[in-house]
């Protein structure tokens, strides 16, 4: 017979769970409100969601760094807190984008907001644990919610996108569990710190099997982080999803993925498993480059941005590969900078969302659409150009500082060739960002009706875009404080 188990509440450390519980409770609350009274306006849900996220964020700030909770399943280290902050901030920026002046199918569902909150909770679990099981479950929760959110846009394209994403996600899940199984087989544990301990104690015997496991993990996370050749879903899904969700997808799931990748590969790299480093090096370079050159030939701005975000992800993966504190801090800095810019860029597309495909029978946002925008909507054009320049890494806009820091991290760890490759890739990438600027500024308008660029606009959207633009332009002022916080957090979690 088993001994009775006595558990003290303190040892459970329920505080570690608080943020996710807030999100889940919030989601459930929304569902209940819907049950009680139908046909409530979406503005209510949007505001509720924001409030819930604010409380969630408060709870995150309330967490003590370095805590483990609930039988050590939860791990609240620096990067967990940091990434949760990023996730929540991005979510808060995302949710008001629902307040468009046009009516969209998905926002009429209260379930949309509930799912959204569950998804956030899923991501939070993902980053706040080093238990492969919890990571897996969190990941799946978030993913399943995300598939649904994509499909809710209710266009043929969005279903197609959701199905593609879903099927590939299922395969990736298979890879993930296979990888986890191999780790478990090798170490008898599914907790990363324990795995690391055992492997180190055994001095990495069974290297081949370990590497096979790592391969599966790279494949699984590569799918999440859209690394070549596991990236194929990205452009299609971004195209199919609504612009705003695409922007969200390009930021939040990835930051969660980065944290997991950091946890899984971090210890391997730190214990000098050269194979991981080399393979990631190759993967990073291929991802950056291939995504870049494919982005060159796109006709649609949204697809271009999709490829560009693949490339950016590759860029940032380099930081994980480098693995120093500076590199890991750089990752977060980069991604925070990327958050504002990319979300802003997608929001610009969202604002110009229109019903009919006027310019192209396939694309919603072909380059031609933006032809001569400077003459019709100068402010919009300038803001869009700012985002493009920032993405291209033109100083002093936000992403430049991220790039600078990542490249510096590469240089400081003697990856000068990598830094050069990054530089060349940045140079290549300029072409396609520039292409949009060229269309907006240098070509003549194809039509004179200015409203198409603001079909969808509303005060909240303008506010968010303005905020993103502001952050993009004056990022330099924010870099130092952000960097300070990031470095403290990252250092605290030993990366």
């Amino acid at each position, binding site marked *: 017979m088993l001994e009775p188990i006595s558990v003290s509440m303190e040892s459970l450390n329920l505080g570690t769970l608080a943020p996710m519980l807030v999100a889940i409770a919030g989601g459930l609350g929304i569902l209940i409100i819907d049950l009680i009274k139908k046909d409530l306006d979406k503005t209510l849900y949007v505001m509720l969601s924001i409030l819930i996220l604010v409380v969630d964020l408060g709870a995150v700030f309330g967490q003590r760094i370095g805590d483990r909770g609930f039988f050590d399943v939860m791990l609240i280290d620096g990067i967990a807190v940091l990434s949760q902050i990023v996730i929540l901030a991005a979510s808060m920026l995302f949710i008001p984008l629902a307040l468009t002046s046009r009516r969209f199918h998905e926002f009429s569902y209260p379930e949309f907001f509930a799912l959204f909150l569950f998804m956030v909770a899923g991501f939070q679990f993902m980053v706040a644990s080093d238990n492969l099981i919890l990571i897996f479950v969190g990941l799946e929760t978030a993913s399943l919610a995300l598939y649904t959110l994509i499909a809710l846009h209710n266009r043929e394209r969005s279903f197609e996108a959701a199905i593609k994403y879903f099927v590939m996600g299922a*395969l990736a899940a298979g890879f993930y569990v296979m990888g986890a199984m191999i780790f478990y087989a090798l170490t008898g544990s599914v907790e990363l710190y324990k795995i690391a301990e055992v492997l180190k104690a055994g001095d990495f015997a069974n290297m081949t099997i370990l590497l096979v496991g790592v391969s599966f993990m790279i494949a699984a996370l590569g799918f999440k982080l859209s690394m*070549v*050749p596991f990236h194929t879903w990205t452009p299609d899904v971004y195209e199919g999803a609504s612009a705003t969700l695409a922007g969200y997808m390009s930021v939040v799931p990835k930051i969660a993925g980065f944290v997991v990748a950091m946890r899984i590969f971090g210890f391997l790299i730190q214990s000098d498993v050269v194979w991981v480093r080399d393979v990631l090096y190759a993967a990073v370079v291929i991802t950056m480059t291939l995504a870049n050159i494919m982005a060159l030939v796109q006709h649609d701005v949204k697809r271009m941005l999709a490829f560009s975000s693949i490339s950016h992800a590759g860029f940032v993966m380099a930081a994980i590969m480098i693995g120093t504190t500076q590199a890991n801090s750089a990752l977060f800095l980069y991604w925070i900078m990327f958050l504002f810019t990319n979300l802003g860029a997608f929001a610009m597309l969202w604002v110009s969302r229109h019903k009919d495909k006027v310019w192209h029978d396939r694309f919603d946002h072909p380059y031609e659409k933006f032809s001569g925008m400077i003459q019709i909507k100068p402010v919009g054009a300038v803001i869009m150009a700012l985002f493009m320049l920032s993405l291209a890494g033109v100083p002093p806009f936000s992403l430049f500082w991220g790039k600078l820091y990542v490249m510096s991290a590469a240089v400081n760890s003697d990856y000068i060739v990598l830094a050069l490759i990054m530089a060349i890739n940045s140079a290549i990438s300029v072409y396609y960002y520039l292409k949009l600027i060229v269309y907006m500024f240098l070509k003549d308008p194809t039509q004179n009706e200015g409203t198409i660029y603001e079909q969808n606009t509303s005060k909240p959207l303008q506010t968010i875009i303005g905020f993103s633009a502001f952050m993009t332009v004056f990022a330099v002022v924010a870099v130092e404080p952000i960097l300070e916080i990031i470095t403290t957090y990252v250092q605290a979690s030993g990366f």
Partner: protein
Amino acid sequence: METYLYTALFAPLVGSLFAALFADKPKNLVTGIATSTLLFVSWISSVVLLLHVAHGEEVHVKLMDWIHAGGLVIPFGFIVDQVTATMMFVVTTVSAVVHVYSIGYMDHDKSFNRFFAWLSAFVFSMMVLVMSDNFAGLFIGWEGVGLCSWALIGFWYHKESASWAANEAFIMNRIADLGMLIGIFLIYWNFGSLQYDVVFEQVADKDHGLLMMVTAFLFIGAMGKSAQFPLHTWLADAMEGPTPVSALIHAATMVTAGVYLVIRANPLYSVVPEVSLFVASLGAFVAMFAASMALVNRDLKRIIAYSTLSQLGYMFVAAGVGAYWVALFHLMTHAFFKALLFLGAGNVMHAMDDELDIFKMGGLAKKMQWTMILMTIASVALAGIYPFAGFFSKDKILEAAFATDHYVLWTILWITAGLTAFYSFRLVMLVFFGEERYKIFGYHPHEAYRFMLWAMAPLAVLAVIAGFFEHSFVHMIEHVLPVEEHHISTFTFWTLIIVTQAIALGGIGFAVWKYSKGGFSKKWEETFIYQLLFNQYYIPKIYDEYICKPYGELSRIFWKDLDLKIVDATVDFIATTIYKSGMVSRVVQSGNLSNMLRWMGVGLLILLLAAIFYSPVR
């Protein structure tokens, strides 16, 4: 004295700027008169300075700093010593005359004002050239006269040939200027300064090879300005400019700048006999070479131009054999009679509606008596017949060549003297005497304005009497230039004079005899020698065929084939390759889910392969 110096220097500049104010306005007589007056002022100042320095004094002033970088200090400094004063006298005299003459000559030209602006600007540049106390200042003037020469040769810019000739002159000069510039760099880095006095002081301490380099490079500069072989072609083409310009620039002053440079730098040249010998030999060669071309040419002005070339050769011989003062003396006398000759030619051209072919003239003496007289005086002086100015200076050159044992040079010069006499009188005969062929072509010649003739008079006088100032000149010049006593016996001395006079007179006689009888037969014109000479030894053609055209062709190849098709195409190729590889890798993105899943499989497989077969050392 400083006031005089600055007056002499800046009066032409003031005139030039004044005239330039009216440059695009219709003709305004005031510009002509004002510039002439100012030049007259300049002339007076020059004369005062000449008289001042004649007793061995010098005027040396520093206006201001110009360039000052690192160790290089170049001031705007001016010096008037005996050489400078002589040059100033020559320059201002001839230019004053030419200015007055031009008022008449350019009477009907609509760019009258512009002409005077440039002409005075030229005088200013020339003054800077001769008065500067350092090589950089000399170079300013050097380039300045080049610029003005360019503008004046191409004065009638609507004529294709004129603008072509202008550019040719400028570019030829630039080639030489590069040599000079290098010479200046050499001087700077080795002497530490560009001031004449500082440089010449140190000559004794310097390496011989270095001095050879310096003098050689400086001489390259001189060759361009003085149109020595092989940079001589521009001078004949420069005759496209208005005739007063030819008189002033391409006979009296600018082209002698090269000689001036060698004279000025005599402390350098006198210690490097190798280069000096080269200078002399080239001079002798050019003297004969140019004279030979003058023999058969049909173009009034070109003949005189070749004769100028030939005389410049004489001057270089003098400078080369160390008789710097003789070179300067010949420079002076030559300026007078050659300017006179050109101005006379100007009268003829005016009379003949700018016709230049001497075979279309003849018998003009009746219509243009005074011009005929003036030109004959000039020709006689050119031929070097006693007691005209040319005799004194030219004879000294031959004497110097003989006395320094350069017998070959002497022989060449001696023969050239005969040729000179011949072609001068060929010209006189064909233009002024014999059959009145101009009637066939329907010209109505007339004498030039009276004041133009009066303007020429001072030159005529000087062409006649200048030679008699030889002794006072020597007396003055020995303060700065070495004047050596030649140790030749009286007998030899007289023999030389007689022999020279004989060949000159012979040349004249032959010309008069031959052309009073109607000249050479047509057959002569078909001979190879005639063709060779007539086509200027085919040198312009060679330059055109083997330098200009290939240069143009090469430029085009560089542009079209190299720059566009290789350099630029490489850049574009890189760009398009990247773009195309984008197109190719697009295939990955087929949009078919099955393919996408398979790509994931491929990725996994690659990773597994790496896991099992790639094992780097930990």
